[in-house]
């Protein structure tokens, strides 16, 4: 049995219907491609909801499910410091720390109703009211309250000088990965009646498009208070009044008290209560080997389906054999043709899922210097000769046969409805096929000489990118370019900042944010490496980022995408393929395009009985 990522496609339809019911344009009702229809009808039994669906679990079954993210050791309960922040660590902590929302299989923001509810009670000025579920408690019995979220806000708002941030550029008091953005937008912090309130409200100083994901995972404030010898109420007051005497102690504990300096030594259970379906298992961590989570008895939502989930620390290239031997039950190996072949040879013993992920590959022009910086004709000549379809057919389809050429930057092909709508209005398909004749005309119009050198840089070693460049060279050299593969391990360190390239080949990982693209495409932004500048794009981003209205987001995205195509910021290629596989006796394993990985719904994994 082989599940293709049709579920994601179906999911996207559903999500799109939900999100854009107010604004669907005629384009969105275009006939879907026949291939998709076929896939959908075949997989009708597949789950269509991008979010977690109710699996009807009422009690936890004995047993253990083994999974591996990779060989990286677990680092600590607090995954929000720059030192511990990684997908490896979050894979564990996300199971033990609950939150109001999570990313669904296609990147949709899903609400976790078990944890609580939230809604924007006003869009401009933006005001969001959060309500934590009444029965939501930490595994030590303490209710999850406003205090936990106030502490979370404090870690992202208070500066080292003991004030609430002005513009997020100051040095932060807490060693948090998130910086001071939250404090910048919500200077007053969440407001509630009492320290133990279940309802509280964020008043945004100005509208922020990505307000939903700005509020992150809360860590237990009562533990911090206890560790520094005060009550939770006193901690709340100290934060509200920015009382540095108290805060300095709190920072000390927040920065270090939840990190595990010595691998294999679990912290005192009193320090690390769980707010999710799992919690640390006593003696469950063996340095260099594995860490085991066990079902949280005090979890108020649907119980975990299986008693224990073990995360083994094993290198990715050992995963396939480990799955075959039953040492792992769920794996997410490197997406290569070899891995997929190997997995398929295992037959019905394992179920393989392939699909696209939220990371996408693209060619970006250098606007700071070189032949492409001033001449649209030159960029078009290059775009007409890049064999995008061939690259996808040769390199990606063997892994994931649903792979397609990507024609947008802010939406992914598997977010079908939204993608089709946006692409239909922004791109007319002119670069779909290689057109050497037009490329030559544009080449001549740009006044380029035969044999013009084009350096394509990327972070080497990367065999797939080397193959992509070889394909481009085979095609574009006929036009008159001389494509040079300048991949180097120091690409991001030296070549990119120094501008020693004509075209940069790399991938962005989709963050799930709506306005993160502003950093890449707007004038003078930190991720705008090529120095691209366009007034229309800048303005559209301003509009998009300063509203919480979904309809405006879509409209502005169309403007941005169209302008980026017309001025040729760069050429999107494809969404990276992803591969997941699991032992066929497991139920409810669903792969996801989001970065949380296949483990995202681990609490639903169950052995078929």
């Amino acid at each position, binding site marked *: 049995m082989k599940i293709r990522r049709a579920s994601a496609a179906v999911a996207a339809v559903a999500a799109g219907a939900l999100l854009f019911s107010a604004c669907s344009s005629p384009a969105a009702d275009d006939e879907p491609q026949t291939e998709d229809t076929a896939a959908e009808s075949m997989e009708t039994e597949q789950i269509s909801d991008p979010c977690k669906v109710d699996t009807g679990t009422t009690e936890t079954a004995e047993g*253990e499910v*083994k999974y591996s993210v990779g*060989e990286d*050791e677990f*680092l*600590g309960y607090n995954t929000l410091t*720059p*030192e*511990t922040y990684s997908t490896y660590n979050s894979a564990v902590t996300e199971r033990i720390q609950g939150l109001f929302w999570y990313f669904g299989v296609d990147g949709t923001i899903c609400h976790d109703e078990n944890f609580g509810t939230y809604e924007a009670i006003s869009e401009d000025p933006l005001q969001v009211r959060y309500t934590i579920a009444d029965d939501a408690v930490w595994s030590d019995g303490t209710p999850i309250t406003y205090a936990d979220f106030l502490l979370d806000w404090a870690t992202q708002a208070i500066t080292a000088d003991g004030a609430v941030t002005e513009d*997020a550029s100051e*040095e*932060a008091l807490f*060693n948090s*990965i*998130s*910086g*001071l*953005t939250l404090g910048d937008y919500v200077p007053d912090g969440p407001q509630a009646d009492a320290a133990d309130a279940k309802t509280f409200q964020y008043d945004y100083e100005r509208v922020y498009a990505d307000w939903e994901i700005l509020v992150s995972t809360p860590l237990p404030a009562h533990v911090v208070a206890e560790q520094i010898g005060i009550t939770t109420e006193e901690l709340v007051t100290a934060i509200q009044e920015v009382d540095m005497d108290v805060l300095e102690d709190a920072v000390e504990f927040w920065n270090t008290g939840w990190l*595990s*300096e*010595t*691998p*294999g030594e679990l912290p005192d259970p009193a320090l690390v209560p769980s707010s999710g379906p799992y919690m640390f*298992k006593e003696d*469950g961590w*063996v*340095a*260099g*080997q*594995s860490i*085991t989570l066990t079902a949280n008895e005090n979890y108020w939502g649907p119980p975990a389906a299986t008693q*224990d989930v*073990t995360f*083994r*620390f*094993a*290198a990715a*290239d*050992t995963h396939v*054999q*480990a799955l*075959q*031997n*039953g*040492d*792992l039950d769920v794996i997410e190996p490197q997406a290569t043709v070899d891995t997929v072949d190997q997995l398929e040879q295992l037959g019905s013993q394992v179920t393989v899922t392939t699909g696209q992920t939220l990371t996408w590959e693209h060619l970006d022009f250098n606007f700071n210097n070189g032949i492409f910086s001033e001449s649209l004709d030159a960029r078009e000549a290059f775009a007409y000769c890049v064999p995008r379809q061939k690259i996808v057919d040769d390199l990606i389809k063997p892994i994931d046969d649903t792979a397609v050429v990507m024609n947008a930057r802010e939406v992914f092909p598997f977010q079908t409805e939204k993608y089709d709508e946006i692409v239909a209005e922004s791109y007319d398909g002119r670069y779909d096929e290689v057109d050497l004749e037009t490329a030559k005309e544009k080449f001549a119009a740009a006044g380029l000489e035969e044999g013009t050198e084009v350096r394509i840089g990327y*972070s080497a070693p990367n065999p797939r990118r080397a193959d992509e460049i070889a394909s481009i060279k085979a095609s574009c050299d006929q036009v008159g370019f001389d494509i040079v593969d300048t991949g180097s*391990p*120091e690409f*991001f*360190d030296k070549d990119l900042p120094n501008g020693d390239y004509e075209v940069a080949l*790399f991938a*962005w*990982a989709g*963050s799930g944010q709506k306005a*993160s693209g502003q*950093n*890449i495409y707007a004038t003078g932004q*930190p*991720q705008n490496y090529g120095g691209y500048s366009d007034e229309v794009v800048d303005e559209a981003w301003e509009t998009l980022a300063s509203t919480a209205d979904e309809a405006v987001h879509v409209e502005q995205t169309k403007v941005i995408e169209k302008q980026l195509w017309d001025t040729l910021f760069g050429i999107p290629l494809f969404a990276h393929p992803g591969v997941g596989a699991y032992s066929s006796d497991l139920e409810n394993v669903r792969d996801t395009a989001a970065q949380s990985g296949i483990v995202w719904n681990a609490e639903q994994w169950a052995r078929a009985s």
Partner: protein
Amino acid sequence: MLKFILRRLGISALVLLAASFLMFVLTVNSGDPLKDLRESNADNKQQLIDARVDHMGLDDPDVVRYVDWLAGVGQCFTGTCDLGTTVTGANVLDLTAQAATSTLRLVTAATLLAIVVGIAVGIISAIRQYSGFDYSVTFLAFLFFSLPVFWAAVLLKEYGAIRFNDWIAGGDMKPLMIFGTAAVAGVVVGAVLGGSWRRILSTGAVTFAFVALVLWVLNALDWFRNPFFGLGMVLLTSLGAAVLVTAIVAGLGNRRVLYAALTTAVVGTLSYLAFAGILLEPSSWWVLIGLFLLAVVVSIGIGAAWGGYARKQAMLISGITGAITSLVIVFDILVASWASFLQLKSRPISTIGSETPNFSGDFWESVLDTGMQLVLPTVVLTLISVASYSRYTRSSMLEVMNQDYVRTARSKGLSERAVVTKHAFRNALIPITTIVAFDFAGLIGGAVITESVFGWKGMGAMFREGLDRVDPAPVMAFFLVTGTAAILMNMLADIAYAYLDPRIRR
């Protein structure tokens, strides 16, 4: 001698210091420690970069960072080592202790096995020079020597773990498997024992028949899933070992030695009965180690009592027999635990990890669990080391066998056994000592790929991860341990040399 050792130590310390500086500079310049952050699209990217620069001291000159590190290491002399922290905030001292333990567990068995097997194979192939056995060993040695570890490991996992586990689920040997195993055993034993073609054929045939019969009986008894060994077999095996050791080292003609060895075997087996309670449920490894030492001491005592004129030899052989008997007893206990172990873990050999997560067996079942996890990596490491040891031993042995004094020994009518074990073997061992000492130091750091492929977190993994992140602390810790081990082992080898050969001393 003391002066010699002190001078060596002084020079070694200076070498280590200079090398550590070189290593440090090379490490911090080996890449970009901010690589992952440069590719980040976080809003506060610059703040994150600044934080890491500050955390790792990237703005300081290399020399300053080195001196900082060295100051931390210097505190070791006051008992408070500070090897720094990794970029992810882990304490490197703890990390090193864990990694070193893991690596030692991994390489100790492999090294011992490789020494014993490699030297034995080397000697036999030297004695049987230009025989089919010799050619086969040469061929295999070169094959193993050039084996890519990751590839061999993948094959081993396929056959040694996955297929074996599939098979043990039924535990039934097919006739073809029995035939094949017996045939291989027949060919090997025939070739090793050598002699005329007639003799080779007959030893081969007898071995074949014996192995086939034993396997057939074991199979019929479902022995592979429910094995038993028993006191009788323990006694028989120990007695066999006693005779064999005596035959090789002293010759069966030396009755006092033979009796000493046999007594040891019997006493050992009887003590198994006496200590059964402690042995079956030992409270810790220390109990077992204590009992083992006790066994060896008692054995040596038996040797001394029987010895008479051959006291020294009797003590040695009794000691060896005692040690072997102890191992046979452990084997018996493990065999007895196998069936219940299979209940706990239906697929006994995992492809990854040094132990089964959350394994819930008793002491011996846990030993079986960790032991089975050692099998595959040990096989890989052993194959590679055996290849070189057998070649070195063979050439060294051949050289010695052509010496005049060996010819003299033969011409005065000594048995071939006495010539080989007494006159040739000891001298052939001298160059091997150096290689073994050096190799052991190398193995501690050199099992990088093996560790990674089998999911062990040892010194190699620590080194590799550190280097990937351009994080000097773990790399330097790795260097400290392996560098010190290399220097110590080299010095041991030098001292042994100086002791064996006075010409080395100056």
